């Protein structure tokens, strides 16, 4: 995760490189040592809110709490909606949490942010590839969701039709006046 962050925190991140990389390295080192409370504090102290959000999301990811990691990424996107790294991270996390609708929202926004980048922006090719991968993953997740939704609709429809059919049959079978008079059977 931190390797990915190091890549995406390239020259496009808008921060002095040494400061950004130092803080990333410090948070990564604290995470590797299991000092997650200190890592979280260090991440939150970052003066750039979008970078703080990215680092905080990474700490939560390291702790295995993907829900809070996504929460941090969402908060970062509130202040920096065009942040490519945050968009990518939020998409990844939403996919991991099986929130395919949210993942599609993030990947669409990532696509728009990418389209607005100047042609000379660094790492543009890498970002296009990344976006394509995420979009494919979102499409696969969306397909799975649609399969599940269709299965659910089918199941409800069959259950409902079955219940109605059975009730109609029951009513018809119980209707008075349709039973023939009993026959008298002579003993054999």
């Amino acid at each position, binding site marked *: 995760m931190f390797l990915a962050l190091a890549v995406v925190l390239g020259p496009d991140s808008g921060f002095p490189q040494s400061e950004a990389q130092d803080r990333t390295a410090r948070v990564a080192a604290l*995470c590797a040592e*299991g*000092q*997650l*409370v200190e890592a*979280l504090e260090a991440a939150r102290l970052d003066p750039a809110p979008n970078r703080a959000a990215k680092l905080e999301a990474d*700490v*939560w990811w*390291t*702790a*295995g*709490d*993907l*829900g*809070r990691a*996504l*929460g941090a990424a*969402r908060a970062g996107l509130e202040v920096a909606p065009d942040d490519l790294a945050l968009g990518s991270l939020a998409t990844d996390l939403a996919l991991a*949490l*099986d*929130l395919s609708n*949210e993942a599609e929202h993030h990947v669409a926004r990532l696509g728009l942010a990418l389209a607005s980048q100047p042609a000379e922006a660094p790492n543009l090719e890498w970002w296009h590839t990344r976006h394509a991968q995420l979009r494919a993953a979102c499409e696969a997740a969306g397909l*799975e969701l649609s*399969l*599940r939704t269709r*299965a*659910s609709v*089918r*199941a*409800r*429809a*069959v*259950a409902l039709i*079955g219940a109605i059919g*059975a009730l109609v*049959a*029951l009513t018809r*079978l*119980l209707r008075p006046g349709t*039973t*023939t008079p009993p*026959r008298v*059977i*002579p*003993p*054999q």
Partner: protein
Amino acid sequence: MPAPHRRGRRAALSLAVLVAGAGTMTIELSAVRLLAPWFGASAGVWTNVIGVVLFGLALGYLGGARLSMRPDPERQLVRLLCAAAVAAAFLPAAAGPIARWFMPAGVPLHDAAELLVWGSLAATLLLFSPAAILLGAVGPVAVEATQQTYGGGAGMAGGRVLGLSTLGSLVGTFGATHALLPGVGVRVTFLLAGLALFAAGLLLAWNGRQGRAAVAAALLVGALGVTLDYDPPGAGEGEVELAASDSAYQRVRVIERGAGEELTRYLRVNESLDSYQSIWTPQPGLLGAGYYYDHFALPLAFTDPSNPPARYSVLVIGLGAGTAVRVLEGVAPRATELDIVGFELDPEVVRLGALYFELREGPGRAYYDGLDGRAGLAQLERRFDQIVLDAYTNNMEIPPHLATVEFFRALRGALAPGGWLTANIGGFGPEDPVVAAMARTAAEGLGTSVVLVRVPFSRNMTLLARVGGEVPKPGDASWRFLPALDVLRGPLELPGAWTQVSPGVSGEHGASHTLGELLTDDRCPIEWLQLRSIQSASEAWKAGA
């Protein structure tokens, strides 16, 4: 004295009624097992199956009443039995395609609740209502045929048919559960039920010299059903199925994935979805992030490294294939001798554990299979330093009798002074209905505070409690970890990862926390809470919990 051919007809008629009763119960009791690889065998699935079969029988009785007024009730009986035989013979082959229609592959556990309920109901309707209707119709037609054969009143004929049919149902009930399902498996059980119904129809046709066309048609169509296979989910992509069997409780599979150090084996039961019951890796010890079993080592992690216990006794309730044992064996200090007792309800799981998961008995290791955790606990007269509670049924359901305040009181009695309880609870956080209820109930039953710990990268929580002692908290002097287990520490120190629940009061780092339901032997709605847990999970994540 009746003529010999009449005696044959009477015997054939009685046998037909008996077999129809047996067939009905065999199909009903095996129905859940047939569906279990896709929908599990929860109370909800059982309810759906029983409900559909009862409704089918009701329709069958009413339809059979009409049919009984037609001429030649024995001919109708032969037709009904043959049609029911064909329906039964096709059930194993039809189960896969129909179940997959309502439960596509790859559904995660937290998205499965709706599909498990509605999907199992729809699949049950399509699969089992034809056989239930046909077998229900046998009764009234058999009453008519009995009255014509034996004479006498409707009460006499009805009583005879009901008596024989109920006796047959008894045979089907005990035979399916105790002999057929564990002995020959799900597919052969249905085929045998179909064969018995067909044989009863054949005998009746033979003696009555009627309905032979139905017999011939059933033979032809039923034979096709016999040739088709039952195809429950097997190994996924990149996986190998090492073993699969139908135990008395569930369908059990051993799946292997990866190679070398990455080699991993999973024990999966029934529908499994994206979960598993046990896991094995080549090296004993911690399994890594995402595996709740690692938290069973927390009591050992808190021990003083300069003074490890010479002997450490552990009771594992819900042994499975022995994953908890293997974790503890790998992390216990060298100077500590482990003494482990394990209870596992399903003997097949223990057998597969010995074969594929290195679950071996020997000095300091005693495993009791076929023994329910609570019943076993009542028989034990010793106390343990730690109890591991990891008992589940149908992948995600905590057995109700292992979730009550009375059970936790019994656990308290089996813990040595300062002894630990470590329990795995499937749930999505401390506010999860199941987790909150279990925490409150455990706190009340044990008479001490319990701590809930979030398991990283999973949908599980670990419940920790110490009888006659305190669970160390972040910042305490006793908050120390054995070096080999220090990897567990970091995530536990983060805000929200650690929640304390006390008897009557609860709080997360001092903040208020919803008090869960108190579960008792008298009232334990754990299955309802579990359904609510799964349904609320997606919403909680969407809200960024």
